[in-house]
């Protein structure tokens, strides 16, 4: 669950955030992944997030996007030991070492096995494999971000050129599938990354 959408210049006060979550969590008792995400237009104070997490036991994990590692550290200081945190790939090495127990990343939409392999390497303390797979994930992330900052555009481009299920029809408006020239540029760049899982899929799609 995201924090209040910061539409049209709305930046909530602490009291407004508390009132919002009190209303939602008094009705929704299902397990919640609580998302701190800069794309809402603001980052709530650590103390506010900690207070909400302590108050509502249905919050089972805190997802951290677009915040520095000190945000996780400060939250850990305020929350009971063992609190679950999920972090983004670019922050994951530090985040995992600090105690995060989950990693999320949109790149896994087309390289899920690489993602799995990265986490397996971490769990097996295989630093060499971890460093290889982390680099694959980051290279992929850095490349596709040219079509960002939001994900649907490059995701659907990747799905299309790699002929993944559902890739044929593209994103919904307001997003538009770029023209063939740009798709070709995307294809060439993606293949140049030489990520094994992409190569396998590209071969299947007749690209290599």
């Amino acid at each position, binding site marked *: 669950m995201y924090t209040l959408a910061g*539409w049209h210049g709305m930046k909530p006060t602490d009291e407004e955030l508390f009132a919002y979550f009190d209303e939602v969590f008094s009705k929704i008792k299902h397990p919640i992944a609580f998302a701190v995400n800069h794309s809402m237009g603001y980052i709530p104070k650590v103390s506010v997030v900690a207070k909400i997490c302590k108050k509502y036991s249905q919050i089972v994990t805190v997802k951290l996007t677009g915040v520095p590692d000190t945000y996780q550290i400060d939250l850990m200081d305020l929350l009971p030991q063992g609190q679950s945190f999920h972090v983004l790939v670019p922050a994951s090495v530090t985040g995992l070492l600090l105690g995060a127990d989950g990693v999320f990343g949109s790149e896994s939409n087309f390289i899920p096995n690489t993602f799995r392999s990265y986490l397996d390497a971490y769990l097996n303390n295989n630093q060499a494999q971890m460093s290889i797979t982390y680099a694959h994930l980051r290279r992929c992330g850095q490349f596709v971000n040219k079509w960002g900052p939001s994900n649907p555009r490059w995701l659907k481009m990747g799905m299309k050129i790699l002929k993944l299920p559902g890739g044929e029809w593209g994103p919904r408006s307001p997003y538009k599938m770029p023209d063939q020239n740009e798709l070709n540029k995307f294809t060439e760049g993606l293949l140049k990354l030489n990520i094994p899982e992409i190569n396998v899929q590209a071969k299947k799609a007749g690209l290599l």
Partner: protein
Amino acid sequence: MSKITLMCRVATTFLKDGGIDEPAQRKFLQRFVDANLGVYLGSGGQGEGHTLSKDELRAVYTIGVDVCKGKVPVFANPPEQYTAKSNIEHMQLAVDCGVEAVNLYAIAGWHSMRPTELELQVYYDTILTAIKSPIALAAQPLVGYTIKPSMIAQLCNKYPQVVTVNLTGVSEAYFLQVKDLIKRPIRFDVPITSSMHTLMLGATGLLGTEANIIPKTYRSYIDLYEKGNLIEANKVYAQIRRYIDYTAPWNPGPIRWIKMAMKVLNLPGGEGGIREPYQMPATEELNRFRDGLLKLNIPEINELALAAGLKLPPSG
């Protein structure tokens, strides 16, 4: 007859139970008619449009048209939307209610959506092909990103129904770039801040949030400017700027301080307060806000305060 249009994105008034307070809305709008200011109804910010159902938006537009049409410009400012389809539905609703023009924002940049030029072009073409009524095109970066001046100009040149460009949140240089690229006469509405410059550069209208509380001060500023009495106009401008600076800590969503001021000054609808997700601050903060507001010593605020039974602080 004033050549410069003054427009305000007006607040929506609510009852204590959260419903729309129609009698208060009518009285609130009458203040703009009396001060000869045009209104934008149901804005996503000041009009709390994102909290209004379609039926409530219809009510806000209908009341606004009834009170203002034929007296001052009455435009709609539908809350920004993510898709052209949704925007067309909202805009058509406003047109059907009889507003004179409808504001059009760019694609709402929600969840990091930053449109490509192609995506923006398709969005605008879809809307401006469907809606032929007069349009106020907003360059407002509040949607999450800045639209290129060339895109704004191109749309103005291509679609004759665009009657106004709203230039809130962009620079003077942006205004000049747009102005230089548009090939036909069109209205340019700019914010009050630095308006002495932009008016001299060719802006033909002013947009002001603060006019929700001090509409007559805005009117006075423009009247003095149009008479060429720049010394007195600057004095009034300073009052407005002091007001802007004072309320800034309760921004960036201005509706918080608008509803606080409406409450402490006992303006129509002030008692009903604000809709969630905003919350009216505690009494202590309201008192602090009121005391600071009165210390500004702005004649129109003083007049409102006296009418509300408040005691003015000793001046000087």
